[in-house]
């Protein structure tokens, strides 16, 4: 008996080890190392890195740019998360219906996900270009003046948000579409026999059944609202005057433009803390509202 228990243990460890080794090497160890680095100064040439306690965190509290990118990131999340989820759900419901050219529509909605963000950012760059860009040409037809979308601090961040939503919605749509197709058609038939309208059916039957997907998608949307910054490199480089800079972009800037790796580690700790809190919160609170079967 005892022998077989031990065997099971070994068996379990063997099964766990491949994933664990990778997670520890590439996720947990770097995370711990980041926290440690945030308490040291950046080594420069002959000057060695030394322990400086909370100095990096004091700098952080006084860093105007840090607070600005944090606020930017807040608005970026507030807009991209709900909008991309609502849009993806709407698109999924639409292409789940029987209609002509359904395959084409599905493909069209999914295309933004397939294209590399760097490539599409270059295309959006020309959409936003004042004067002869696509958006301004359309506005020009109606007699509106040209608008410098990416070059004005009032609109730069929202221009970036629009690209992110466009990019994400198609991806989330796929999950909703898959989930919608697992809902048994008998439920809809039963609902229509009972005289339930389309909207009522969606609100009371389909949407609750989609909750696990919504949870999954919203966790992803939250992570993406911190992670999706590639287009900023191409389009605005965080400008003008950090108006469109986000936390991850700023971390890159500090680490690889300023070469202040210790301070970059400090910023990363903040980001880790935010993401961990949000992810735990999401699972903890939303889980109660999710019906898994």
């Amino acid at each position, binding site marked *: 008996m005892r022998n077989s228990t031990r065997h099971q243990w070994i068996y379990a460890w063997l099964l766990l080890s491949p994933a664990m080794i990778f997670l520890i090497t590439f996720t947990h160890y770097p995370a711990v190392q980041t926290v440690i680095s945030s308490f040291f100064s950046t080594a*420069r*040439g*002959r000057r060695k890195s030394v322990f400086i306690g909370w100095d990096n965190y004091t700098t952080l509290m006084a860093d105007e*740019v840090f607070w600005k990118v944090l606020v930017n990131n807040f608005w970026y999340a507030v807009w991209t998360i709900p909008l991309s989820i609502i849009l993806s759900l709407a698109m999924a419901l639409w292409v789940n219906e029987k209609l002509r050219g359904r395959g084409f529509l599905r493909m069209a909605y999914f295309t933004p996900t397939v294209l590399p963000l760097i490539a599409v950012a*270059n295309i959006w*760059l*020309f959409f936003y*270009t*004042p*004067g*002869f*860009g696509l958006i301004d040409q359309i506005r*020009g037809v109606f*007699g*509106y*003046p*040209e608008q*410098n979308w*990416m*070059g*004005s*601090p009032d609109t730069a961040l929202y221009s970036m948000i629009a690209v992110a939503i466009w990019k994400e919605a198609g991806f989330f749509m796929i999950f909703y579409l898959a989930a919608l197709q697992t809902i048994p058609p008998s439920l809809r038939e039963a609902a229509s026999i009972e005289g339930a309208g389309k909207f009522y059916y969606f609100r009371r039957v389909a949407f609750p059944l989609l909750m696990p997907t919504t949870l999954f998608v919203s966790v992803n949307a939250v992570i993406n609202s911190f992670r999706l910054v590639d287009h900023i490199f191409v389009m*605005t*480089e965080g*400008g*003008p*005057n*950090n*108006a469109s800079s986000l936390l991850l972009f700023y971390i890159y*800037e500090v680490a*690889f*433009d*300023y*070469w*202040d790796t210790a301070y970059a580690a400090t910023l990363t700790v903040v980001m880790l803390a935010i993401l961990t809190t949000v992810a735990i919160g999401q699972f903890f609170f939303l889980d109660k509202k999710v019906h898994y079967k």
Partner: protein
Amino acid sequence: MFPKMFKIASVASLTSLAAVGSAFAVDLEFYFPVAVGGAAATTIEKLTADYVAANPGVNIEAIYAGSYSDAGVKALTAARGGKPPQLSVLLSTQMFTLIDEDVIVPFDDFVSAEEQESWINGFYPSFMENSQTGGKTYGIPFQRSTPVLYWNKEAFAEAGLNPDAAPANWDEMVEFGKKLTKKDSSGNVTQWGVRIPSAGFPYWLFQGLSTPAGAILANSDGNKTNFNDPKVVEALEYLVDLSAKHGVMQPGSIEWGPTPKAFFEGETAMMWTTTGNLVNVRTNAPFDFGVAMLPAKERRGAPTGGGNFYLFKDSTDEQKDAAVDFVQWITSPEQAAVWSIATGYVAPRPDAWETDAMKAYAADFPPALVARDQLEFAVAELSTYENGKVTQTFNDALASAIAGEKSAQEALDQAQAAADRILKPYR
């Protein structure tokens, strides 16, 4: 057991190294960035291959390392990891950062007094401003550029201006700009007078204003800036006024990427941009265009830009000697001419312009000479210790003034205070 195996292994690798050594005396790794695409990468690889073919004792591996900033990241990461390339082309403005990281050595120790005179002193002095500090030469100019003014001759003629004369000074640029700015019936602008791109890194073209105004942004030791010099404030006010007061330039920050296209499309009648676009404009402009030096204020002036060769510290003396020899060869007049004609970069030495190839090129395409002639008035591109941080501080100040969030004086005062804080440990 373990140490023994190690010993055997190291003996084996030593003997194999010796075997390789007799075939190739020196192995070099050389990182290069490509900023504008096109012929640069193939030209650099071909030149390297030519050198290796002519020098059997040396083997050079030319490694394309991405954009300037990618190449900088790769070289520094490799150096920090203890395996730097022996040689790299990186931004001239990274000199102080590389010194601070203690990863490069000056070229002076590896050249004779005679070579010092004939080779190092043979480059245009304005390119050397970004390459020397404290009496030592850390960078050898290679892919260097400078911004110039391009103008649309057809638009000039249409506006009743002399199509063959670019604005010579600031007042003329505003005056011409007003004539060139066209509006449709509903009052929307269809053609701007001038376009000075400012997105991302506004400081570079801004130096094309602050230098003519008579200001130098940073000292040659790289530890002091003059961001709130009254002349810098004047230059920034002029730049802001081009949009805000005179209405001859699109308001807000202006992208670099679409700038040549805006020029081709007639969206702007004049543009400021790098000489690196010369070949592009020559190929794609559907109208007659001219190229001129940037307009003058108190004097003429412009920044230089682009990349230098750097010699990395962590290598053997043989490697360093071979690397210096290669750099000497590739910057010699004949090779510099090949490089300049293929890419549009400014040949960095006066003697390169005396070669037959360069003379023929300049005769065929005189605008190429404008950049060279401007070098006489050019100054160092903004570069200090903690370059990324200091430059970004300055960029943010320029951007906030351009966006109208702060006055020029206020923005520059704040940038100077921030730069003082950052540079304090280096004084």
